[in-house]
């Protein structure tokens, strides 16, 4: 969001050209004019605002284009269809595989059900996501930006539709210069209609994650759905249409913080889409290169055909080096490879490479690739540790749990016969999908009575508490000590619950206070 951060990484020049006699004179003049106290001529201030240069990305075919199509189909396929995947959990739970159930405060993901107090799993997911992003960046630069980011995927789809309706780069450019005709209107209209339909479907798919999808689709169609569903569909239709149709690379260049973070996180061994200037420079057309070679002068492989610029979805010239505008989608690699093949030169003049290797080749050394580095290992280790920890806690968690809250006022109660009573609020969780009856007991104090308000049922003197399926229940528990509580006592006690039918015992510790 900060164009002031738009920092150009200027390559250090290895050799300065000898100052021309004229420029030496000019420098001398500037020095003397400064010494004589004269103000130097004010430079022309650059404009504060500039119009966006519209990008007309050209169609391209090749390896990376294929990868992008596959990723597009898979990610959009998951996004649009996942809400319709069913997952049978039995009668007391929804049968949608992925569901964020806000009214009931539950999140379902296939066989995993998350309660609000287990929100830390989301923290774990966020750590995993961040580390995966960092690891991708450390290995091969902006893999996320180039292939996986929703902004990239939807923009890619929208641009394909644009090429289909309004023609490829050249045709579209020409058409845009001409006055509006019925044909142009029809093409433009078709494009915007298709964009809006996709945007609408995108918003529609979003809300399906928050309610039973088939029911909601029916309700939406019959105008019975809650207003908030329509509002969110409207909102996401607008954002998808605006961001993928109109904003496109402006999102990456001016709105997204990741390019800045990525630039700060990268290092010299991360593979990036790189123009191998050691091979490409000096640029010359095929004819001119032949002439130069004939004279024994150097000529690079780059024929300055601009194909890499024309196919770029963000309008970047990769030959200028890494910069925030480049999402590293690899389409320029495909474009350049096609040209190199045509003129019979080796492919990958633009390739996933590093500046280190470009410099090494210039000096006649072998390129080095270092995937195993401190940062890649560290990111991978954090992913492994957090992933294993999450998997372990998910696999070993139990269906029952109990928490206790001691009454704060009064801390203890003296009964008429002199015995002491402490009161607690216990919350008992039943995460199973069946109603459960738990046996409550308390340990740590001899000769205590334990009563549960609202539960008259006992099993061998222990109160029974029934909790509904997939629910929690709060009960007031009174612990009365007949004897043996010294003044000022704070005795550790443990509440435990165990299903009446046997199973896991959940415990929680608290204290019993005396006068």
């Amino acid at each position: 969001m900060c164009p002031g951060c738009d920092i150009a990484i200027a390559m250090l020049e290895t050799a300065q050209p000898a100052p021309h006699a004229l420029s030496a004179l000019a420098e001398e003049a500037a020095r003397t004019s400064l010494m004589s106290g004269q103000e130097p001529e004010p430079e022309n201030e650059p404009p504060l605002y500039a119009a966006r240069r519209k990008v007309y990305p050209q169609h391209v075919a090749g390896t990376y284009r294929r990868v992008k199509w596959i990723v597009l189909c898979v990610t959009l396929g998951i996004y649009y269809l996942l809400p319709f995947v069913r997952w049978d959990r039995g009668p007391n739970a929804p049968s949608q595989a992925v569901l964020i159930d806000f009214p009931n405060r539950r999140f379902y993901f296939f066989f995993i059900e998350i309660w609000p107090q287990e929100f830390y799993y989301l923290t774990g997911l966020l750590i995993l996501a961040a580390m995966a992003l960092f690891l991708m960046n450390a290995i091969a630069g902006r893999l996320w930006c180039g292939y996986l980011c929703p902004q990239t995927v939807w923009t890619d789809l929208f641009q394909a539709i644009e090429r289909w309706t309004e023609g490829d780069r050249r045709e579209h450019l020409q058409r845009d210069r001409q006055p509006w005709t019925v044909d142009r209107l029809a093409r433009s209209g078709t494009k915007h209609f298709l964009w809006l339909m996709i945007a609408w479907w995108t918003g529609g798919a979003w809300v399906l994650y928050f309610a039973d999808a088939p029911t909601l689709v029916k309700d939406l169609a019959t105008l019975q759905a809650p207003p908030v569903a329509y509002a969110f569909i409207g909102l996401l239709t607008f954002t998808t249409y605006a961001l993928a149709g109109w904003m496109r690379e402006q999102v990456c260049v001016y709105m997204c913080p990741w390019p800045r973070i990525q630039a700060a996180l990268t290092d010299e061994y991360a593979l990036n889409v790189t123009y191998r200037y050691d091979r490409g420079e000096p640029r010359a057309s095929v004819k001119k290169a032949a002439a130069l070679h004939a004279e024994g002068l150097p000529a690079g492989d780059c024929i300055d055909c601009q194909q890499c610029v024309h196919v770029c979805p963000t309008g970047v010239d990769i030959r200028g080096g890494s910069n925030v505008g480049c999402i590293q989608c690899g389409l320029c690699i495909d474009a350049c490879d096609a040209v190199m093949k045509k003129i019979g030169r080796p492919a990958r003049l633009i390739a996933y490479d590093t500046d280190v290797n470009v410099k090494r080749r210039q000096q006649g050394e072998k390129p080095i690739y270092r995937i195993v580095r401190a940062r890649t290992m560290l990111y991978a280790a954090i992913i492994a540790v957090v992933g294993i920890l999450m998997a372990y806690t998910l696999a070993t968690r139990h269906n029952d749990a109990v928490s206790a809250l001691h009454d704060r006022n009064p801390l203890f109660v003296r009964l008429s016969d002199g015995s002491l009573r402490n009161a607690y609020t216990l919350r008992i969780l039943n995460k199973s999908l069946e109603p459960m009856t738990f046996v409550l007991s308390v340990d740590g104090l001899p000769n205590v009575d334990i009563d549960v308000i609202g539960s008259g049922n006992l099993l061998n003197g222990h109160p029974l508490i029934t909790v509904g399926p997939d629910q929690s229940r709060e009960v007031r528990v009174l612990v009365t000590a007949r004897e043996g509580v010294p003044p000022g006592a704070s005795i550790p006690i443990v509440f435990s619950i165990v299903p009446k039918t046997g199973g896991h015992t959940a415990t929680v510790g608290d204290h019993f206070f005396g006068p």
Partner: protein
Amino acid sequence: MSAPKPAELPSKPIGTTGHEWDGIEELNTPLPRWWLWVFYATIVWAIGYWVVYPAWPLVTSYTSGVFDWHTRSSVASQIAELQQERAPMMAKLSAASLREIESTPELLDFARALGKRAFADNCAPCHGAGGGGAKGYPNLNDNDWLWGGSLAQIDETITHGARSGDDAGHQGAMPAFGRDGLLKPDEISTVADFVRSLSGLPTTPGADLKRGAKVFADNCAVCHGPEGKGNREVGAPNLTDKIWLYASDKKTIMEGIINGRGGVMPAWGGKLDDATIKALAVYVHTFGGGEQ
């Protein structure tokens, strides 16, 4: 020959700001113009706010806006919404007997949740946040009750109060035996010792407990009972248990005999609706000391 270097970006006609760190220069790239338009759009949006919402102060009033929106009516509508949401449960609460409420988990949970709020708003100033009481204000958690601890009795005490001026409220007070000259100072001291002995507390060495017993039988037993077990008809406390409304030391007991006692519990009937009073009765009863 100098090594070839990458071409300058052809789309980089803009100079730098002149800032340079370690060979890294800061470009002076102009902002995209749409950004400026977004800024203007936020201004237009703000004007929209002035039009639809209350915004500008006038001399005696303010511009109320075309939506006619008020914080007060907004809160009122939210409260109405909440009441509507609660209505079915409130109706069930009104229809059910106190005992039914306590034995139905769904109603008990609702009544306790409602009672907790109502208690904090109305009862906690005297009885404490958790009903722990204070000197002169009964602890509602224990099993000693001045006017009875069954659900119906608690409900009645909340509705009509004690010494509240409500005709149906509890009446009766501890007379000022000392101030009104009904007992002599030495009689008061002796009977105070006797009262302490009723619950097994140590007495002043050499105290004439027999004389104290006589003074008690003549003056106190009519309300507190011949054995000092109290009388809930008049709110006379049981003097034989371990629970003391004021304190168990001799000085405090003598204070009570000299000046009398008579704490006031307001009548809440009419101030709170029936369902809330029911919820309060259940809430207090389930503190732990409730009687059957």
